[in-house]
């Protein structure tokens, strides 16, 4: 990705542009068919894209470092009692400093994946940190950790699906596949069936009635 001339850069760019809608479709499947709740829809899509650049292990490590440190720093920000937009801007500054730090560490230790850290979308990461803290305040730490874990899980799953199925090269060779992706999304958007996890969620409703008979 570093160097390789304008041609390689353009190929890489179009590759990422075309795979983005495929990732979005996988996220839709996770939410509406399987039923996993995440922090918004954009965060898992964009973070999955970042994982494709850094590789899975480093991607997860970077995500954990940035969100973990970010949440600690965010709770320190609570002291200043500042308004939402200003606070998000401060968080973006904090995230950018952490990313610059990771890049320096990557260069020093010769870890190539950490040099790609700039691909990690700073605004989205700042938003994940803010979502974590808001959820923590309103619904508790357990719920915030659960949603973060779900987000991370969906991102990792997107990465694995894209890599294993070779979807990047498929969509690069046959962009018309995206029409099928859109058709699938419309079908899911109109689908009324139970989400997979809802079978578990509602399973207690059936048991008493079944024992009556």
């Amino acid at each position, binding site marked *: 990705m570093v160097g390789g001339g304008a041609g390689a850069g353009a190929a890489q760019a179009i590759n990422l542009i075309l795979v983005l809608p495929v990732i979005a479709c996988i996220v839709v499947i996770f939410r*509406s068919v399987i*039923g996993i709740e995440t922090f918004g829809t954009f965060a898992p899509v964009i973070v999955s894209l970042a994982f494709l650049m850094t590789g899975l292990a480093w991607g997860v490590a970077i995500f954990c470092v940035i969100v973990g440190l970010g949440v600690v720093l965010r709770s320190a920000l609570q002291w200043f009692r500042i308004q939402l937009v200003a606070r998000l801007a401060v968080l973006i500054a904090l995230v950018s400093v952490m990313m610059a730090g990771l890049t320096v560490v990557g260069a020093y230790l010769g870890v190539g994946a950490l040099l790609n850290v700039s691909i990690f979308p700073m605004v989205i990461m700042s938003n994940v940190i803010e979502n974590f803290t808001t959820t923590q305040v309103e619904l508790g730490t357990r719920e915030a950790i659960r949603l973060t874990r779900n987000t991370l899980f969906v991102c990792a799953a997107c990465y694995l699906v894209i890599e294993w199925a070779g979807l990047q090269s498929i969509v690069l060779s046959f962009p018309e596949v995206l029409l099928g992706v859109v058709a699938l999304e419309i079908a899911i958007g*109109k*689908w*009324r*069936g*139970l*989400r997979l996890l*809802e*079978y*578990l969620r*509602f*399973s207690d*409703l*059936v*048991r008493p*009635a*079944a024992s009556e008979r």
Partner: protein
Amino acid sequence: MKLETLRRLRRDALGMNRRNLEFLVPYNPPGLFAVVDYKPGTKRRLSAAGIPVPATYAVLSRQWDLRRLAALVAGWTSFVVKPARGAGGGGWS
């Protein structure tokens, strides 16, 4: 989980997908959100339709109106103060 359980759930349970498409969307026309997001207006509409609503003792629309608060609630042993717009603790200014 038994197959019978799964079948019953699929038939009887109301999941998010069906709830959104068959209840949320058809029964909540976007144009009416402005009505139901404003409590005094909602109450007026409901009582006009013959649906009982808790009595409104007073609607205070300006900060300055608060000086009348003590006098307004003097006759009641209990009362609730609610924002005209907002829910879950939001809507105050």
